[in-house]
């Protein structure tokens, strides 16, 4: 009898079973909305199953809450961050476990412990920094450190690498390998098949809330895993032949000159042509997101932005959109979604003024467009009036993307556009972006996944420490070249893996 769990209108899990062996890393894969996170939340005691049982080392287990799960030795990195932005990094990690003397919290001890933990894990974070000052990647690192601060037997990681670049992923894998011992095990949820291949021993596949299969990693081809996930054979696309004539020879749509911010950016200049997809690569904190935010006026900057040869003053994102520049943020929870509103309202948000008649919003249009998007992007939701908070992570990401597709900007800046999106859908999105470019839109793709950048971009801008260190045409670019440019400033690696010494 497997585990089942339903939400109003959705049967998220139906008779699902998994088993994790001592000393192994079990990968859990499936399309967006397949039920992976729901299953992990059952193990973490956040939800209670409708039916079915769980066992830990032979003993029945039914954690009533997160704390009880921790006490049983289950530690979870959730897909959505659960951080308190106003507290410091150290305070976040040890929330609920504060060391005290005479009932007064010893913050010095707290920071010391956090410092030790970071040193052990090789994470370069300041324990005293408020979490609100961290980038998404930094926040992800805090979550990882927090999960590893428990003395856990089972470590559950729900898409921990979605926001990380390859260097940090390497750090993470070293941490995972260190963790695995004959008395422990790891459940690893990811959409990145290369990572799954690299780290896991076995792979369990879910589809549509059902258990499909479990296969030994070494003996299974990625193609087979994907087929099990989507229930049919899927051709993983390759980059289509570059459009002719070369987009780089068409007219410049967006020109950025000498973009500089007080915090990080130094003299960033580049051109974006009509119909071009320009990739931005770099390590965590290289400043790619900052470039985007500066262009759309979300942060203060100096420098010149020209749209179609005309200099424009962009003081806020509204100005940017008015000038035809849209920006999809890497942080969907903070900058992307109206979590407590439905899919329709989220999809309409950027385009509302265009969906009015005599000053009144035409909700029927909005609903029609939303349905169209749900179909086009295969957003898994019981209806377009579902609250986005209740969607799975990947489907939320699709909703944000849909919002910008509806807006139809000439220049679209997408920052980690496929964060948390499954392989099948990813390819659909790649196809979509490519066809947008073919229609004459210009797109900037910021991504920490080099394959993604290489798959999409005509040219690739590489950044390091707030500066552009090189621009490569896709044909000439290799992962190696890019990494070299991304680490141009020598030993200043943000994260160095233990064996790098």
């Amino acid at each position, binding site marked *: 009898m497997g585990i089942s769990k339903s939400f*109003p*209108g*959705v*049967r998220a899990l139906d008779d699902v079973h998994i088993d994790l062996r001592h000393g192994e890393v079990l990968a859990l894969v499936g399309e967006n909305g397949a039920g992976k996170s729901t299953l992990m939340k059952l193990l973490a005691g956040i939800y209670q199953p409708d039916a079915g049982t769980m066992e830990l080392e032979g003993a029945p287990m039914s954690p009533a809450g997160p704390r009880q799960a921790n006490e049983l030795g289950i530690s979870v990195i959730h897909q959505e961050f659960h951080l308190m932005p106003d507290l410091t990094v150290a305070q976040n990690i040890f929330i609920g476990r504060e060391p005290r003397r005479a009932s007064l919290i010893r913050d010095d001890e707290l920071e010391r412990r956090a410092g030790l933990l970071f040193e052990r894990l090789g994470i370069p974070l300041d324990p005293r920094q408020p979490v609100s000052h961290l980038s998404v990647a930094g926040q992800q690192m805090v979550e990882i450190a927090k999960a590893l601060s428990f003395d856990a037997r089972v470590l559950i990681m729900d898409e921990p690498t979605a926001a990380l670049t390859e260097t940090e992923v390497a750090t993470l894998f070293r941490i995972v390998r260190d963790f695995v011992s004959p008395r422990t095990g790891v459940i690893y949820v990811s959409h990145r098949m290369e990572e799954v291949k690299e780290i896991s021993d076995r792979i369990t596949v879910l589809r*549509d809330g059902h258990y499909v299969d479990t296969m030994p990693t070494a003996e299974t081809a990625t193609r087979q895993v994907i087929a099990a996930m989507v229930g049919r054979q899927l051709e993983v696309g390759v980059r289509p032949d570059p459009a002719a004539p070369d987009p780089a020879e068409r007219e410049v749509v967006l020109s950025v000159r000498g973009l500089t911010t007080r915090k990080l950016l130094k003299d960033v200049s580049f051109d974006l042509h009509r119909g071009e997809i320009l990739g931005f690569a770099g390590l965590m904190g290289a400043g790619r997101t900052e470039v985007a935010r500066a262009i*759309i006026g*979300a942060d203060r900057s100096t420098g010149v932005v020209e749209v179609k040869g005309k200099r424009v003053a962009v003081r*806020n*994102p*509204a100005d*940017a*959109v*008015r000038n035809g520049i*849209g*920006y999809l*943020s890497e942080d969907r929870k*903070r*900058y*992307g*979604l*109206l*979590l*407590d*509103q*439905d899919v329709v*309202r989220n999809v309409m*948000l*950027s385009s*509302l*003024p265009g969906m*009015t008649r005599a*000053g*009144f*919003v035409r*909700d029927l249009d909005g609903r029609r467009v939303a349905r169209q998007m*749900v*179909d*086009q992007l*295969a*957003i*898994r*939701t*019981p*209806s377009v*009036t579902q609250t986005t908070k209740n969607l799975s992570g990947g489907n939320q990401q699709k909703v944000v993307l849909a*919002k910008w597709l509806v*807006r139809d900007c000439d220049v679209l800046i997408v920052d980690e556009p496929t964060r948390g999106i499954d392989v*099948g*859908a990813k390819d*659909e999105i790649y196809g979509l972006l490519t066809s947008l470019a073919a229609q004459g839109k210009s797109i900037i793709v910021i991504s920490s996944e080099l394959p993604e950048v290489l798959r999409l971009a005509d040219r690739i801008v590489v950044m390091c420490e707030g500066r552009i260190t090189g621009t490569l045409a896709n044909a000439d670019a290799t992962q190696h070249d890019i990494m070299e440019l991304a680490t141009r400033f020598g030993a200043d690696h943000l994260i160095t893996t233990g064996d790098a010494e």
Partner: protein
Amino acid sequence: MTTKTTATKRTPTRFGNRQQLQQILAFAGLVVIFGFFSFASPYFLDWANVKGILLATAVTGIMALGATFVIATGGIDLSVGTGMTLCSVMTGVFLANLGLPLVVGVLGGLAVGALIGLLNGLNVSYLRLPPFIATLAMMMVAQGLSLVISGTKPIYFSDVAGFDELAGGELIPGLPNAVLIFFAAAAIAGVVLSKTLTGRYALSIGSNEEATAISGVDVRRWKVVIYVVAGLFTGLAGVVMASRLNSAQPGLGLGYELEAIAAVVIGGTSLRGGKATILGTVIGALIMATLTNGLRIMSIPQEWQKVAVGIVIVLAVYADILRRGKEA
């Protein structure tokens, strides 16, 4: 493109229907309270008394409509009470002191409300003051100005022909205009909240201000618009109040803001923003007025009335939470 759309077939009820159902059910608390008092006092259900309740709801109700918009953004408006007073006083200045035509005076009163909203909005948007502080300051300034402008004396409209008819007359026989104005204002507010950019952006800002801004909405400008809309309702409340009393009372108004906000919150609008319904606000305002009236009709001693109102509010809102919890 993939064609997996298991999604749509899993929708048992259409959302539209459910929301309507919810709002109809929200009447439940009010109906129970009504039922109880009808049972407890033979006089309660008289049309005269019901009319009295409606009339007592009108002014605070109109203020609450405006406050709903601000609260939808996650803000709060403490200036509705004394702001309303300032609008009454200015209406008095326009009509009784300057002798301007009726229409001009009334529009003037509304304009003063809009101006109050404009200042609130600018302070919140461009000076980035917390709404609590901006509107608290406005509450004090409006109170002071009401007294200064009126010379701390009431301004009487006795010589302004027809002004008292504005609220006191009965275009629909049996129903005072004040009540009619309240319902009309509620209808307009409902449309504005759910069907115009102002309302939509108010809810979006309340739901996630940063995401709304990144989506290309000029949040600062729209916030100003939203506060101006709220101010217009404050102005309307001021005019109705002045007409009902046939005078502008400069000392009145303090404390009304809490009543108005309470009506909004009892109606199910969240102070965190993002969720707001006008029907809820109307019901919230009616619940407050009905409670006060019913307890008075039952001749409950004043001190016990407070206790009873407090307890009933807890019960009513808790019942509402239970009901919504079940549906979600």
